[in-house]
């Protein structure tokens, strides 16, 4: 746009309003919603520019907390005045919402406006029943829901474009979850944390590449996930409120987790594997563990609650190391407590190790107590990792004689000339 040059007034000219609409939209998109809407009073050029921005974000960062008590009214007004497609809608009602049903009419409006990304969050103790209109938002690509309850409609055709699904603190049944996953054929990333109402999870998702599960479940069946690259599973403790807490754990050990074992066999392309919380306990109950396939792409392995005093845990470790010949990063958080299957040594029953760490570059071991198998493993890694760069260690808080452990580790021979030992604080 060429403006007439008025000498003398040149410095006072309004240059920003002459920018093309797509730039003004780019600027408004980078502002918190309150500032963007307020731009309508700046001048006549700016009066309606905000009303076509395609992202509406109402969360703790974009709306000052002092206004959160009337956040539902604010969203009502903005939706009424807005025109044009809404591609992204974020609403965090955890600070305010008494009655979540206002969200129903917003979803109706959004479902008509080519919604692509939806993030909803409510209070953890006030579960929001998702309305059926949500399941007709055909174009959704990213869906993130917290504190919601799912009731799939009888005729659910799925979200044909959904790529990322993130559910936290949700109530959903086994069948609904399986249907949801299987009908969204483009699904690539799933995060499923703190769920209720389902315990046997099935994943029929041919395009799935990343899966994070954190909660209390009985079994996981990766029915059809051939391209899975990142798998992170954490099994929560069974209800501590139960008096039979211990017996629950025993049940966990004795059940055959056929499906999860089958699942581990069905993810050959995995690159990043995390088994957290009670996952090792769950696997310890399985006798099929010796038959893990070789993962030729597995580069990162992350294990928590590893009990170095338990033979079963150590057997699992050995099995995993055998299946990961190209491992580059290994992280172990120990949790060594007295167990019913005490392990005398890491190499029980084996004369020599049947695995190598030829590609291992980083090893992290934390909550070290200095028990035998623990030290043997560290010793082995240091002596057999030709390309090791760093060993990160951290001792457990309960250790009395730290110096003894440090001295022991210092003595271990190192195969890699570059290897450093760094103490994490």
């Amino acid at each position: 746009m060429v403006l007439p040059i008025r000498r003398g007034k040149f410095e006072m000219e309004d240059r920003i309003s002459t920018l093309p609409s797509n730039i003004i939209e780019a600027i408004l998109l980078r502002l918190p919603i309150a500032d963007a809407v307020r731009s309508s009073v700046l001048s006549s050029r700016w009066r309606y520019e905000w009303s076509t921005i395609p992202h509406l974000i109402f969360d703790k960062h974009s709306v000052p907390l002092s206004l959160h008590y009337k956040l539902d009214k604010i969203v009502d007004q903005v939706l009424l005045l807005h025109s044009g497609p809404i591609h992204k809608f974020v609403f965090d009602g955890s600070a305010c919402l008494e009655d979540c049903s206002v969200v129903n009419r917003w979803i109706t409006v959004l479902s008509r406006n080519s919604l692509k990304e939806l993030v909803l969050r409510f209070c953890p103790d006030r579960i929001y029943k998702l309305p059926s209109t949500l399941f007709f938002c055909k174009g959704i690509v990213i869906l993130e829901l917290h504190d919601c309850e799912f009731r799939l409609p009888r005729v659910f055709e799925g979200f044909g474009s959904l790529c990322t699904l993130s559910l936290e603190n949700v109530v959903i049944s086994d069948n609904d979850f399986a249907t949801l996953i299987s009908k969204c054929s483009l699904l690539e990333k799933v995060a499923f944390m703190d769920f209720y109402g389902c315990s046997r999870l099935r994943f029929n998702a041919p395009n799935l590449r990343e899966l994070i599960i954190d909660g209390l479940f009985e079994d996981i069946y990766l029915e059809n996930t051939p391209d899975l690259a990142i798998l992170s599973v954490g099994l929560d403790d069974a209800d501590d409120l139960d008096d039979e807490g211990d017996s629950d754990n025993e049940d966990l050990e004795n059940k055959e987790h056929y499906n999860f074992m089958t699942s581990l066999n069905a993810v050959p392309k995995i690159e990043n594997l995390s088994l957290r919380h009670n996952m090792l306990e769950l696997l310890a109950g399985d006798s099929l563990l010796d038959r893990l396939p070789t993962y030729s792409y597995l580069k990162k392995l992350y294990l928590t609650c590893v009990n170095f005093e338990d033979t079963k845990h150590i057997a699992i470790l050995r099995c995993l190391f055998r299946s990961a010949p190209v491992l580059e990063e290994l992280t172990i958080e120990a949790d060594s407590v007295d167990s019913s299957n005490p392990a005398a040594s890491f190499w029980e029953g084996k004369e020599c190790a049947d695995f190598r760490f030829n590609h291992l570059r980083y090893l992290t071991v934390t909550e070290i107590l200095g028990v035998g198998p623990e030290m043997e493993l560290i010793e082995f890694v240091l002596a057999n990792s030709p390309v090791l760069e760093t060993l990160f260690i951290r001792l457990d808080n309960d250790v009395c004689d730290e110096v003894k452990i440090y001295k022991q580790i210092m003595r271990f021979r190192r195969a890699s000339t570059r290897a450093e030992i760094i103490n994490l604080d």
Partner: protein
Amino acid sequence: MSESEMAIIKPEAMKSYVWLQCTDGSIQQVEEEVAMFCPMICREILQTGMGSSKNYAISLPERVNPPILSLILDYCRFHQVPGRSNKERKTFDEKFIRIDTKRLCELTSAADSLQLKPLVDLTSRALARMIEGKTPEEIRETFHLPDDLTEEEKLEPLKNTNDDLRIRLLNRLYAKKRKELKERQKQKDVEVEEPQKDERSVDEILSFINGDGDSKSAKAAKNKKKNRRKKDQPKDPSRIESEKSHKKDALTLSMGRSEPGGSNSPSPSRAEDAFPTRVDFEDGDIDDELDPAMKEELDREVEDFARRLNSDWPERMQEILSLSQERRAVPNLMNGNGSLQRYTEFDICHLVE
């Protein structure tokens, strides 16, 4: 020349340049790899082969003037070097955008026309940072924006088109009132008792709207109307709207009832008996002041309604929301006591039946 000599000379003499021409005619010579960093220039070179000499310089879009062009070329010159770390690039960017707002806007505009997306992102982020958290006055001062919105416009973020909810409601009001005016004109022409009865029932409703429904002089009724309106400001628009809608409903009800001629003949007389005094009063007023009175009333009510809508936005939303609620809610209270003013129309309907 030997190969080593060629190798030494190459960096200086063999570097290729492109020629760029701004709309003011000035031509600049730029290293090729720097210019190619801009997608638009890159496309021009590859597709049309322009830029290889002074005579065939690439014409830049008009939003790119020579000083801004040199800024952009500085940006391209830095970023097209592949070996720089992210931290270096970030530091450069931070320093680069520390220019006055006028040049920053020109830079954004020029970068957009050259389709240099990273620079557009950088500059629009900088402009957004300048706007964020500031009051409108501060923003207007920073960017020299004209303060050309009226006070009313500042309070009303709605678009004044047919999509405007307010305008639609106001139009509907006007249409209703006009229709009623027409009805009354028609009824005045036809000299039948039933239409008279209709007129009366409409008048009754009118008087109920205008006054407390007790037999008073028309003037007193009008005064009372004014007073009440001033007292019950927030409530009025909703009441007026609901009353108008009820009036319309009552009209259609009474119209419907007037069609079967015979069966209704006892009722008009009953109506007459029920409200004889009021009828006399209203007849007298209506013959003389119907049209101007109606028009005046129409204008006043609509103006009040508009004024109410122009007040605080949240209250306005509440009214509009409560309007729709009342329309729905009131039919349920057909048999209720007429203790609240707005429900008396239904009592009349019952009596008129």
